[in-house]
C-alpha cells in the first residue's frame, strides 16, 4: 500500500515538474526571468520518467532490438516471453543486445552503404552546426560540405537545390540579426556561402556537360 502511494506521489511530481518547466519557459519568453535553472525541472522530469517507466522502456527497447535482429536475419525466430520480473527482462535485454552486436556489422553495412543516410546526416549536421554547436569547427564544415556534394552527385540534385538552401540561410540572417543571435548568423552565413559555391559549381559543370552534348 505504502509502495503504491509513493508511486502515485512520484507520478504526480513527474507531471507537475514537466508543467513547471513549461510554465517557467513560458514566463522566460516574456522576459520574466527568475534566476532559476529551468533545465533542472526538465532533467528532473526525465529522471523520474526513467525511474517510473523503466520497465516499459526496457520492454520496448528489447522489442525494438529484437525487431532489428529480425530484419537483419541474425535471429531465426522472434522470441519474447512475457514476464513480470525485471531481472529477467534485464537478462533478456542483455542477451538480445549481444545478439544485435553480433549482427552489428550487417547493420553498419546496411546504413553506411545507404546514400539516404548520408544525405540525412549532412542535412542534420548542417542544422546542428548552425543552431546547436557554439563554436566553429572547420573540419566538421568541410566534412558536411563533402557529404552534401556526395549526396548531390548521387541523387543528381539540380543546382537550384543548393542555391535555394543558400538563399534560405541568407534570408535567415537578417531575422537572426534582429533577434541578436550573432553566432547563429555567422554560421548561417558560412553555410549560405558553401551552398552557393556548390550550386555555382553544379551550374558550371552542367553547362560544360551541355556543351559537350551539343558537340
Amino acid at each position, binding site marked *: 500500500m505504502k509502495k503504491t502511494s509513493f508511486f502515485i*506521489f512520484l507520478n504526480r511530481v513527474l507531471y507537475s515538474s514537466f508543467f513547471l518547466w513549461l510554465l517557467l519557459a513560458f514566463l522566460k519568453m516574456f522576459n520574466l526571468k527568475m*534566476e532559476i535553472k529551468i533545465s533542472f525541472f526538465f532533467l528532473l522530469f526525465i529522471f523520474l520518467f526513467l525511474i517510473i517507466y523503466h520497465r516499459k522502456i526496457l520492454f520496448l527497447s528489447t522489442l525494438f532490438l529484437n525487431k532489428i535482429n529480425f530484419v537483419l536475419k541474425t535471429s531465426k525466430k522472434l522470441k519474447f516471453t512475457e514476464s513480470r520480473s525485471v531481472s529477467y527482462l534485464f537478462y533478456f535485454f542483455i542477451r538480445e543486445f549481444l545478439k544485435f552486436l553480433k549482427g552489428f556489422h550487417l547493420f553498419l553495412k546496411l546504413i553506411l552503404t545507404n546514400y539516404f543516410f548520408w544525405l540525412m546526416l549532412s542535412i542534420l549536421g548542417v542544422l546542428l552546426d548552425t543552431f546547436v554547436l557554439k563554436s566553429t569547427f572547420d573540419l566538421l564544415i568541410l566534412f558536411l560540405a563533402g557529404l552534401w556534394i556526395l549526396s548531390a552527385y548521387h541523387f543528381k540534385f539540380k543546382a537550384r537545390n543548393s542555391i535555394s538552401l543558400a538563399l534560405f540561410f541568407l534570408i535567415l540572417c537578417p531575422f537572426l540579426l534582429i533577434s541578436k543571435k550573432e553566432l547563429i548568423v555567422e554560421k548561417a552565413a558560412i553555410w549560405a556561402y558553401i551552398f552557393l559555391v556548390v550550386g555555382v559549381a553544379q551550374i558550371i559543370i552542367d553547362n560544360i556537360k551541355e556543351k559537350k552534348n551539343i558537340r
Partner: protein
Amino acid sequence: MEKNLIMNFLPQLFSAIFSLSLYFLFYLPLELLLTEFLFIIPKINPYVNAFILFFFLLFANLFDWGKIVHNRKKLIALSLLIAISFSVYGIYRHVKIEREHLPKIYQINLLWIIQGQLIEIRGTNFGATFKKGEVTVDGIKFLVKDWSENKIIAEAPVPDIKGHFYLSIKTKDNKISNQLLIEIKDPDYLKKYLQ
C-alpha cells in the same frame, strides 16, 4: 476523451502553479532581503533557487489537487493566492531591477584602521578598472590603489578624526553603495605594543 485527458493533468498543472506561487510569496522576498537589503549573500546560485522551488513542488504535491479543483471555494482561494503571489513577484522584480545594479559592499578585511594602512573591500558592481570611483569614510577620501568590479584596495589617509564611522563607495556614475562600520584609530594606539 480530450476532456478526460485535460482533467487527468489539471491537478498536476495546479500543483505546479501552486508551488510557483509559494516560491513567489515566501522565497523571493527572503532572497531580496538577503541580497539587496541585508547584503548577507551576493547572489544566489540558479541551481539553489531551482532546488528550493523543487521542495515547494514536493510540498504542493502532498495535496490532493483532484478534489481541490472540483471545490469552487477552494478554487477561488487558490486563484486569490496566485493573484497575490504574482503581485508580490511584480513588486520583487521592480525592486530588484532598481537595486541590482547599485554597488554593494559585502566585506572589509579590517575592523579598524590607522593611517597608511591598506584595506581590501569586497563586493559587487564597483565598476571597471578604468572607471575608478571614491572610497570615503565620513567625507575623508581614501587613496585608491586598485579598483576592479568586485574588489577595491585603498589606503587610509591621515585622518583628522578618530572613532567609529561608516565606509561607503561612490562609483564613477555617482551611485552610492551601502555603508559598513569601520573604526579609525589613533596611531598612538600602537605605542603600547612597541614599548
